[in-house]
Structures are given as C-alpha cells and as structure tokens.
C-alpha cells in the first residue's frame, strides 16, 4: 500500500459531502507535501502521487456518479429483478474484454480494462490503511517515527500542533467537533456524512443502516403461478392396520395364556412369604469370640532392604557367619543386606523358586514342616527364693582360725552354753578352747585316734565324752562354778557306787577314784567290748542321760546305747542288716534314727519296732541330722547328695540338693536359728536357710545362703565336721588341714 492510496481514500471521504471542501483538501495535500519534504524518498513518492492526482480527481467524480447510479439501480432493481437477468451478465466479476483495432498492427486485439484498485485489489490491502504494515502502533508510541515504509525508511510521525493550535482549530475550523485523531492515519479525521448519519440514527433509535426500508413491499414467494408448493406435506389418511388390533399378536397372547393356565409357564415364582426381618446388630450381647484380627500390614521396606544400603546396614563378616549358621526360622530377618553399586547389578531374587513352592504347598493345604520349639526363659525356671540378705543373720566371714594340730581334726563339739569348744585330732590330742577368742585353755592327750567327742547337752552338769578305740572317756572341763562341778562330779563319780547292773553287759563302767583324779584325767571310763573298733559317732539324747555310740568298722554290732545315770550300756540291735553308719535320737519322741549304708530306718524304742524306712537314694550315707522340731531329717552321702526328708510326708526325699563337688562329710542343724550347714571334702561349707513352717500345708523353705571357703584340702579330705554355736548364728568347722575356723555373721 502506498500513501497515495490512503490519500485517495481520505480525499474521497472528504470530497463526498460537499464540493466546497475541495480547497481544504488541496490545502491539506500541500501540508502533507511539506511534511514529506523532510525525506527525499518520500518526496519522490509524493512526486509520483502528484502526477497521478488529476486522474484520481477525475475518477473521483466518476465514482460519485456511479454511486448515485447504483443507488438508483438498487432501488429500482427490486421491482424489476426478473427482467434484469441479462443485464446481470454485464455486472459479472470479470470485466468484459473489449476488442479494439490496434493502431500499430491494424489487427483486432482484446484489451482488458484498467484495474481499479478500489474494487479489484486484494481486500487485505484495504484492511490496513497504514503504510507501515500490520504492526501494533503502540510500539512506536515513544518514537519519533511510526514505522517503516516498503524501502525500510522510517516514516516520521506527522507533526501535530500544540494545545493552542488545537484551540485555534476549534475556533477556526467548524469541522473540528466532528473530527478525531486517527492513529493509523496519524491525523485528525472528521466524520463523514454517513457516519454522522449513523450517529444520528442511533440517537433517534432508528435502524442505523441507511438503506433499510421499513416499508418494503411484500414478496409473494409461494403464491402465484408456478410458485405453489408441490411436495412438502401429505393429506393422506392413516392406514387401517395402524389402529386395528393384530391378529397374530392375539394368537400369540392366547397361546401364552393357555400355557399359563395349563401350568406350563409359571408367570412368576412364588414370592417368599417371610419378609426379610431387620434386626439391630447393636442390641445383641457382644460375642465372646474375639473378632478375627485383620491381616497384619506388611512392614514398609527399610533401608537395609535397599539394593544400595548405607554402610552401617551392611553386616560384618562375623554377623554374616552367624546369620548363616542360624536356623532359618530363628533368623530375625530372612535376608542379608547387600550392596550393589547400581541397580542393573542386582541379581534375580534367589528365594523366588522356594517361595513359589511354599506358596504351592499352602494352596495345596500341605503343612510345611513345623518345628516345635520350646521357648522358656531360663530365669523363669529358677524358683522364687528370697534374697539371702533378707535372711540374715548367717555366718559370712571367718572370724577366727585356730591352728590346732598337724593332723586331721576329725571332730569338734561346742558346749551347750556356746562358750567353749573341744576338738580332737587323729593323734589323740583334745583341746578345749574359748570359742570367741580362740585361745586354747586346756589340752588332754589320749593314746589313739579320737573317733568322736561330744558335749553333754545338759545345762546343770558340764562334761563331755571322748571316744577312742574301744573306750569312752568322760571329762570335766576346768573353771566350773562349784555347784555345777559338784553335780557333775556326783553324776559321773557317785560316792556310793550304785548297785551294779546285771553283769551280763560286756561294757565296763569305771569311775576314777577321787584320790587319783585330777582335771587332766577323765573321771569316768567306759570300756566297750574288744574289737568293737573306734566309735565314729556319739549321739546324745536331748535330756543328756542316754548317749549312743556307733562304730562303723567294728566286727560286732557297733551300736551301743549308754545310760549315764544307771551306768549301763546295751546294744539295741541284736542283728542288723548292713553296717550302721549313724544313729540319732529323735528330739521329742522316743524314736531312734538308724542309718545304714543306703537306708535310714526309724525305730520306736519304747515299742521296739520299726516305724519307717527312708530311702534317700544315696549309695553311702555319711552324715545325718534331724531338725530340732523333729519333723525333718537331712541326710548327706559320700556321693555328694543331700536329701531333705519330711518325716510326715514320704519315704522319698522332699528335696535333693547336690551342690557339693565332693563327698559330704558333716551336716548340722542350728538349734535355734533356721539354718543348717553342710561340709564337704571340696573344702567348702555351705550354709542354708531352712525355715520349717508349723503349718503342715506349707513346704519347708530351703534357701542356699553362703559358701564358706577357707579350709585347705589335705589328703583328699576337706572339712570334716561342722557344728553350730547354740546361742549365736556362728559356725565352727574342723578341717583336715588341722585348723578350726569360727565363722561369724
């Protein structure tokens, strides 16, 4: 597009209202010319435009006439359109070709009419009156030019006057109030007469189209000859079959009705008479059966299951070995974390086949191998015992150690008041010493191994009995108060010798005469029959009148019961199966416990019959003691076993304790405290708490308290005898290493 073109357009509009305005048009054009002189090229284009200007002016006048003509045509064409079909051929799109005779050749030639751009040019050109192209003009708002022409030159913005000019224009120019600035054209444009007419129509609420004729004549489209409708609607009546019932349908229905009547077709199933009964699920009591548990959710995979776990999740070699060693069911996790540097190095799942197989087994309801596993906390198997610290007092430490002899000390005994102790070694020495300080006060020497010694349990007299081979010596300790001494002396060496019992007894009782007696000598001597051996045990009756001696190695029956007051001895058993190891008097009843190698028998002495036989299951009984209440018995054996018998309960042991590593040598119940001790060849003494309840339903409570070590093992022998101090929870022990220890609480 060129400026010439839009100038043509603009001039056309201005020229249209009135011919008087032609001056102004001229003036404007000169203005434009002046403006464009700033650029040479623009000037050249202007020059060209000036050349063609007269043509345009001429065409301008033609056009105007054409418009008027066409206007008249359109008005008249409505009435006579049918007639003008032929004339329409002339107004076709393509212009008619004129045939003229060429001036040069003299031949006919076809000449096409000149192209008028107003009508034949491309419509797209018309849409864009601006010569700078279809560019948003606001791009150039701030620039002095408004775009570029086809040659790439800047098109400068047209100069506009200032406010004063504009004011003057409003005064001078009557058209100013109907003009507006057109950005595309970069100039003020006054509204054309048509536009004003449109505005006016809109203002008067009329159709803005100037050509609209509200009073057009009626067009008869379907009336008249040749214009009537032939096809569109039918007036034919509906066929009969549309409203007469169908006979074949009737037959079909009849057939169905017949079948229903005959019962061949059940029209509908008999409805269940009982309606569905609603009930409240909440009103019922909750069932005792627990609701089925929902299936456990799978754990989320952890870091250790990653193909590339952090280093701290990787098992060490040791852990790996342990894991492999464990049973698959015991494993905490069924995989080992492994590290792969990349995902493509991860091998296939090695357990895949096995898991599929197990799944098949599950589906087949085949039981997998179920290993019965007993999970018992070992701590729960330990019986609930009170802690030893709550069972004080009991001996805990060695308070004294008295080196008595270089030989084994076989026997020890404590006086009933708990102040003095006597001990005898294998060389025949007996020493009397103070328990609390350990000072030896007196010593006696006998020719032969001391088999046993024991203090008389009576309080009103004070003496003790010592056994060597075949002989029993009765000895009075020194430093006795006069009353006790005299009664003891009177008991053991009565002035008027009692009438001698029937002399059938082979045991001879001999009192030392007062003339020859000194504290260093025994006051009474009981001679057992020859070849009766060394008595190994002295058992006093509680009242201190009877004492029993047992000699294990004797050829004859080794058991003798001596009565001190009557100075009489008797052998209670005429014939015995097995050698008697130990005897014990029952503390309350006239019963006697007799232990052979494997059995303990309880005899009633007054009725002269066997009461019970206890079977401890020990191969060789070494020691025995009876509880002060008389209802319980402990038996120790050389085969390390210690059996506790409840005499009322059973002939089998109530409890078997096997805590020593070597043969048990001695047992002793504390007379007053709930304690007993056992000594063994392993050099240790074990102290037990043994509470016996008067309630028959409650079992005795046996609690191991303390292992006392301190004796040395010599010649395979450890602690040979233990005895309790009757007043205090103190224990005295005689060891094969020739020492005696006092253990205090």
């Amino acid at each position, binding site marked *: 597009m060129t400026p010439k073109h839009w100038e043509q357009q603009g001039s056309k509009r201005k020229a249209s209202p009135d011919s008087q305005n032609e001056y102004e048009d001229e003036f404007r054009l000169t203005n434009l010319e002046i403006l464009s002189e700033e650029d040479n090229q623009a000037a050249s284009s202007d020059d060209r435009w000036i050349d063609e200007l007269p043509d345009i002016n001429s065409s301008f006048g033609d056009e105007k006439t054409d418009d008027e003509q066409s206007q008249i045509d359109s008005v008249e064409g409505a009435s006579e359109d049918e007639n003008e079909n032929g004339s329409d051929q002339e107004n076709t799109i393509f212009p008619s070709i004129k045939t003229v005779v060429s001036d040069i050749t003299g031949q006919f030639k076809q000449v096409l009419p000149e192209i008028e751009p107003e009508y034949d040019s491309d419509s797209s050109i018309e849409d864009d009156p601006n010569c700078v192209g279809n560019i948003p003009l606001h791009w150039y708002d701030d620039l002095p030019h408004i775009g570029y022409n086809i040659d790439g030159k800047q098109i400068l913005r047209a100069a506009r006057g200032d406010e004063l000019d504009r004011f003057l224009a409003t005064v001078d120019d009557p058209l100013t109030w109907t003009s507006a600035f057109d950005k595309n054209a970069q100039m003020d444009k006054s509204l054309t007469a048509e536009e004003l007419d449109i505005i006016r129509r809109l203002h008067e609420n009329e159709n803005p189209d100037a050509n609209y004729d509200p009073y057009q004549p009626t067009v008869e489209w379907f009336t008249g000859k040749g214009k009537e409708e032939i096809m569109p609607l039918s007036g034919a009546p509906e066929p009969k079959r549309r409203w007469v019932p169908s006979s074949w349908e009737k037959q079909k229905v009849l057939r169905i009705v017949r079948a229903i009547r005959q019962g061949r077709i059940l029209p509908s199933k008999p409805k269940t008479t009982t309606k569905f009964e609603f009930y409240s699920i909440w009103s019922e009591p909750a069932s005792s059966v627990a609701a089925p548990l929902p299936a456990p959710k799978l754990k989320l995979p952890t870091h250790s299951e990653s193909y590339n776990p952090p280093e701290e999740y990787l098992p060490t070699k040791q852990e790996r070995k342990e894991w492999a060693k464990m049973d698959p069911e015991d494993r905490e996790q069924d995989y080992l974390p492994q590290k792969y540097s990349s995902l493509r190095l991860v091998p296939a799942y090695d357990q895949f086949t096995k898991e599929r197989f197990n799944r098949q087994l599950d589906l087949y309801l085949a039981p997998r191998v179920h290993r019965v596993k007993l999970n018992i906390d070992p701590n729960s198997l330990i019986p609930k015992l009170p802690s030893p610290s709550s069972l*004080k*007092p009991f001996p805990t*430490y*060695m*308070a*004294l*150690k008295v080196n008595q002899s270089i030989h084994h000390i076989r026997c020890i005994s404590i006086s009933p*008041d708990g*102040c003095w102790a006597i001990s005898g070694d294998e060389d025949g020495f007996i020493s009397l010493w103070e328990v*609390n*300080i*350990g*000072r030896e*006060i007196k010593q006696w020497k006998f020719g032969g191994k001391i088999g046993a010694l024991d203090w008389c349990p009576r309080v009103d007299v004070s003496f003790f009995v010592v056994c060597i081979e075949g002989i029993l010596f009765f000895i009075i300790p*020194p*430093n*006795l*108060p*006069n*009353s*006790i*001494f*005299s009664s003891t*002396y009177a008991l053991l060496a009565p*002035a008027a010798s009692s009438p001698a019992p029937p002399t059938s007894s082979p045991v001879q009782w001999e009192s030392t005469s*007062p*003339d020859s*007696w*000194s*504290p260093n000598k025994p006051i009474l001597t009981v001679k057992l029959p020859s070849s009766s051996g060394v008595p190994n045990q002295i058992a006093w009756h509680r009242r201190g009148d009877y004492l029993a001696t047992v000699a294990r190695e004797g050829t004859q029956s080794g058991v003798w019961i001596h009565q001190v007051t009557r100075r009489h001895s008797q052998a209670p058993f005429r014939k015995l199966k097995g050698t008697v190891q130990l005897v014990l008097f029952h503390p309350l009843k006239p019963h006697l416990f007799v232990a052979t190698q494997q059995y303990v028998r309880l005899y009633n002495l007054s009725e002269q019959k066997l009461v019970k036989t206890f079977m401890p299951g020990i191969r060789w009984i070494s020691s025995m003691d009876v509880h002060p209440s008389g209802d319980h018995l402990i038996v120790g054996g050389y085969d390390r076993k210690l059996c506790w018998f409840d005499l009322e309960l059973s002939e089998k042991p109530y409890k078997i304790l096997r805590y020593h590593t070597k043969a048990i040598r001695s047992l002793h119940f504390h007379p007053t405290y709930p304690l007993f001790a056992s000594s063994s060849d392993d050099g240790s003494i074990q102290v037990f708490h043994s509470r016996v309840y008067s309630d028959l339903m409650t079992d005795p409570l046996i609690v191991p308290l303390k292992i006392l070590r*301190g004796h040395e093992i010599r010649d395979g022998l450890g602690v040979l005898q233990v005895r309790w101090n009757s*007043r*205090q*929870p103190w224990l005295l022990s005689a060891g094969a290493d020739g020492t005696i220890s006092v253990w*205090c*609480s």
Partner: protein
Amino acid sequence: MRTLWLSPVLLVWEETLEIEYIESVLPPQKLSEFPHDDWVSSISCQIPGLFLTTSYDGILRIFNHSRQLISSTRLHTAPITSLSCYLPSSTPKTTTTDDNQTYTLATASHDLTCLLTRLTISQNAHLEDVDEDSAMDGSLEGGSSGGLATTTKSRVTPLAALHLHIAPLSSVASNDDGTKLITAAWDGLVGVWDTRVPEEHEVGDVRGNIRNRVGDGQRSRKRRKVVEEEEEEEEEEGEGEGVLVGVKGVKRKVPEVVMKSHTGRVSRAVFGSSISGGRGERGKAYSCGFDSTVRVWDVENGLCVHTITASEKPFTALALPTEVTALALSTDRTMMLYDLRVSTTSAVVPAAAFPHAALPSCNTTGTGGNQVITGAYDGIVRVWDLRSVKSALASFDAFGSMEKKGTRPVGKKVLGVDWNAERGVVGIGGEGGFVVWSFKEGFGAN
C-alpha cells in the same frame, strides 16, 4: 571460713562455710616390744612409768619403760581376761616415803573371780641389790634386777577376791575415784563392788573344792562348808572356786549391787566418767553384751535405765567417747556409735556405723572424745575419728606378724589396747605379746 564471691554482675556477697577438719598427726611408731610366752589379754598404761600386762597364763607382769620386767606375779590359776588399776583414795597410804606409790589392781579371770591386788612401787635410788622373791608365799614381791642406778621395786599384795559370777569374767573396770568396781561375766550378770577390803570373809569359805584338796593332798572330798553366813544368801551360789592357793590375807567379798538384765554374755561393763572406760555420765554404768544390747544402769539402785537393742550384733567391747554416746564393737565387723539420749521406745538408729575390716575385739578412747583406737583379730590396730565414718584414720600392724595366707590375712589377734593420751602411748596386747606404740591424739578443730 569466710569467702568473698565476685559474681559476673559485680555483686559481692559473703558466705560463711563451716569447715571441720582433722589435723594430721604423726603416724604411729613402734616404740618397744615386750615378748610374752602367752597371749596378753589386757594391759594398762595408766601408771606413769610402768606397763602392766595380764596374760592368759594367769600372770600379772609389770614393766618399766626401759623394757625391764619389774614384777611377774601369778595371781590366778586360770587366764586373766581383764585388768583395771586405779589410785585408791580411800585406802590410806601404807608407806610414809614419797617414793612409794600405791595402786590397786583388779584382775578378772576365767576362774570366776576378780582379785583386788595392792601394788606398791618404791623407787630406791640407793638400793642396788634387791632380792627377787616372787614365789614367796603370802605377799608377792617383785623387783627389777639390780645394777641400775635407780631401781624400781614393786610389791604385789592380793587383798580380796570378788565372788559373784558363775561363769568366766570378761571385764572389770573402776570408777574414776577408785571407790567402785564393776565386773561383767559370761553368765549375764554385772556386779558392782566397792573397793573396801573387808575385815572378814563375807561369804563362806570354799575349802571343799576338789582342786584345793587335790593340790593340798587331802584325799577326802567334803561338801562345801559355810563358815560364816553373811547377809546375801542369793549371792552364795555366785561364789566360785577358791583362788590363789594359800594366800592368807585374801578376803572373800560380795558385791554391793548385782545388775541382772542381760540375757547373754556381758562382754564389757564400765562406769561413767571412769579412767579406763572414757567419759559417760557419773553415777551410771554402761554394759554391752552378746545379746546385742547396750544397757545403761543406775548404779545406786541397780536398775537398767536404758537399753539399746540392736539386731544380731553381739557386742564385744564398749567405750564412751562423750557423755551421751556409746561406741560398741560388734562381731559382725561394725563399730556402732549410739546416742544414749534417744528414747528406748523409738527404733534404735545408730548415730553412726563404722565398717570394720576384721572382727574387733577391744577399743579405747582418747581424751578428746573424737578419736578411738580399736584392735581386731587380724592383728591390725585402727585409729578412728568418730566424725569420719568412712574409714579409719590410720591403721598399723601391731605385732608386725601380718602374713598373707590365701586371700585372708591371718595375723596375731589384738586382745587389748590401752591409750594413754596424755603421754601419747598406745599399749597393745594380744597373741603376739605386748607392744607399745606412740600415737599422739590429734585434736580436731572447728
């Protein structure tokens, strides 16, 4: 002690801290050693210049500081367990010269009696040859061997035998002015005696004793014949066998008061504010026993006015560090400090409990009331400050006989300690004889 504190915000305030500390004392040093044939059961360092020891062979020995045996007297035929010596104020001095000093000793023995003995010490600078006739019948006299510039001559005269107990005596003690004696024995009795020597026998003679007869060669055994009947009939059964064969001047004596409340062996009985027992309240007597009790007695009435019952703590020794506290040693290897003011009805809570490594046997207190020396069966003598409960201040091996045997130290037992705090001398008797250590009492300051 005052301390100034400077805080970050420049506020200065003062705080007073009470700091109790114990002055460090010189470690104990062994001064001298007096070997004995038998175990030494009790000692006394209270007589200046002399050491008295009693032994299990029944002999009282007197040493001077130059380690010389001045006198050796067999007072009892049975072991002597305890010794107490005091200055008798009631008895007039028998000698006129100022050199002679007279003391009275009381020895308790296993032979069920306690013997009062007068000890006369005369220092003769000019006498060079003193005959030593300790075996003389009647009054026994001992003296140091001659050849010294100053000769100490001592005379031991048995005065009276105290007859009460029917079991071996465990201790004897006197009050501070020497007018009363208190004896404790295994039979649970506590006897209080005055020190007056009676003119006549107060209980019957015991000539019918078998041992007397055997010793005298008499062949006939007679029942005991009571020569004189005295006032206390029930005391008669308390009399024991005769002592001190052939001692003519010994009068038999009965106690003033018999205090009978202990159920077990009484191991120690002392008077309040006496020389050997430490402090305590005047007019009161204190005893402890194997029945786990500490008892306070009103001496005048013979009543037990206060009992502290511990649980399973047979007490072996007792000392009174202050007027209101008692320190008792127990066989469960503890030393308990009891406040005697606490009423009996409330639960007995010891003021302090000191763990003792071995079985303690004897104790003695210093004059300061805070320091205590104890001896034990492991042969180690420990010095305690009663304000520091945790451990002993010092401990030393008394006889140097410590031998490690296995895991357990087996030393020679210490059976008696006596601390003369003024002279800083600790006498220790026991299985290993008699040794003297020097130990000055350190006085703690507040």
